[in-house]
């Protein structure tokens, strides 16, 4: 039987294709579990998990917490807004204090890229990265790819996925690129020149600045949010202009000669990157992504927890 090749989930970059497929297979079973009358299994009843969120989050945090609770783990929550971080404590001190209370696994979101990797080297617990700055957001990429697999089948070879929007400030984009490429899909990024990293071509992705051309090429379009909170300067003249050039509306979608799948990692800014009628259409799998998020996170926690030694 297989096991994950990693001890922590820091980024998709560290995973092998086999790891990703193992996570998907395990998630299939958990998806069955969360659709039962009793959505809970006792597997992790002797594990304690700390959710450390140094940055705001609704979806990811709820999704992790539900996943943990449905595996019967004990859960403690922490958010930076109401903690001693404000009093000047360092990250390692904060985490070590929490670990002193016998926590086995840490789920962390942090504004600094590399925070999860740093932590995994310094403290004695399994770390799951729930987003570190503009670096990676591995669980989001896995649930995105899992949702594509559900809609388009297990074989990713030849599948074409375009990621549209603010690629520079998006950890979702980077993780998605790694994940889809490892599975064999082709990836294109599309957005204004200012929001596409200069050397992104070196990752082996195509670059396109015309949304229509990108959509005509792809099978799946992943629409990202403009992350105004991460933008230190203005990268485009106005949101309205961005919407005109890179927003996906029903008219554009219907004018394509094929039916593409539309995704969005949330939170959606309706009327900016995606119009309401597209977000709510049959071609959109946005809510399936959220449902799959719980199953994927259960699978990751389950597989990592099975590597924790008993003491």
């Amino acid at each position: 039987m297989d096991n994950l090749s990693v001890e922590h989930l820091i980024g998709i970059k560290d995973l092998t294709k086999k790891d990703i497929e193992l996570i998907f297979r395990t998630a299939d079973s958990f998806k069955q579990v969360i659709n039962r009358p009793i959505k809970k299994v006792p597997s992790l009843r002797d594990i304690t998990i700390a959710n450390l969120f140094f940055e705001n989050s609704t979806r990811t945090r709820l999704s992790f917490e539900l996943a943990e609770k449905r595996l019967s783990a004990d859960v403690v929550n922490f958010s930076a807004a109401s903690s001693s971080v404000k009093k000047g404590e360092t990250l390692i001190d904060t985490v070590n204090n929490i670990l002193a209370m016998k926590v086995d696994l840490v789920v962390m979101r942090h504004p600094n890229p590399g925070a999860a990797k740093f932590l995994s080297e310094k403290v004695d617990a399994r770390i799951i990265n729930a987003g570190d700055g503009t670096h990676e957001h591995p669980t989001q990429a896995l649930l995105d790819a899992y949702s594509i697999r559900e809609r388009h089948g297990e074989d990713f070879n030849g599948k074409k996925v375009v990621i549209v929007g603010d690629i520079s400030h998006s950890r979702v984009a980077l993780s998605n690129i790694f994940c889809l490429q490892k599975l064999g899909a082709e990836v294109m990024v599309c957005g204004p020149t200012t929001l596409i990293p200069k050397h992104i071509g070196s990752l082996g992705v195509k670059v396109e600045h015309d949304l229509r051309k990108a959509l005509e090429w792809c099978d799946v379009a992943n629409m990202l949010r403009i992350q105004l909170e991460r933008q230190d300067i203005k990268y485009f003249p106005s949101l309205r202009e961005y919407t005109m050039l890179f927003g996906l509306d029903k008219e554009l979608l219907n004018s394509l000669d094929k039916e593409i799948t539309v995704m969005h990692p949330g939170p959606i800014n309706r009327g900016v990157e995606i119009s309401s009628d597209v977000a709510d259409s049959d071609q959109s799998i946005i809510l399936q992504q959220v449902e799959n998020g719980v199953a994927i996170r259960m699978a990751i926690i389950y597989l990592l927890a099975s590597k924790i030694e008993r003491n």
Partner: protein
Amino acid sequence: MGKRTILNSKHLEITLKRLASQLKENHQNFENTVLIGLQPRGIHVLERLKSILEKDLGKDLVCGQLDITFYRDDFRRREQPLIPSVTNIDFIIEDKRVVLIDDVLYTGRSIRSGLDALLAFGRPKSVELLILIDRQFERHLPIQADYIGKQVNTLPSEVVVVEWEQLDGEDMVILTEIENG
């Protein structure tokens, strides 16, 4: 390595037919009864019994497959993670008479997990246990079967293997020594 045949294909067939008859004796026309095979190997016993009973009764029986992986008590006590199989129960078990089916009963721990897994689907009226091979004297939990194909006395160093024609080429139950054990 010692190898001993417990049941050959002919005897296995006879045993399965007897188990089917015993089920019929207690459940008559199976109106309120569902048969559930435990993954991974119990589902083959279920398949055989199902085909015998359906031929006999001339109607389809309600059958399901139950995976117990997440309910096991040896999570993190093994080197490798436990990878789940498919659960396939697309009916309501509330107030049903359930027959759990597995190939070998040994320590009883799988059945304990199976009962937990089953109860996640609701509250059945009753649960019975049907076992093809019962390895007596090595039980870790107070669990006994209601229908038994064959009882055998075995050592902890031995393992009972149930082979099926569609998987392994021939129907057969054998007893072998555990390698390096």
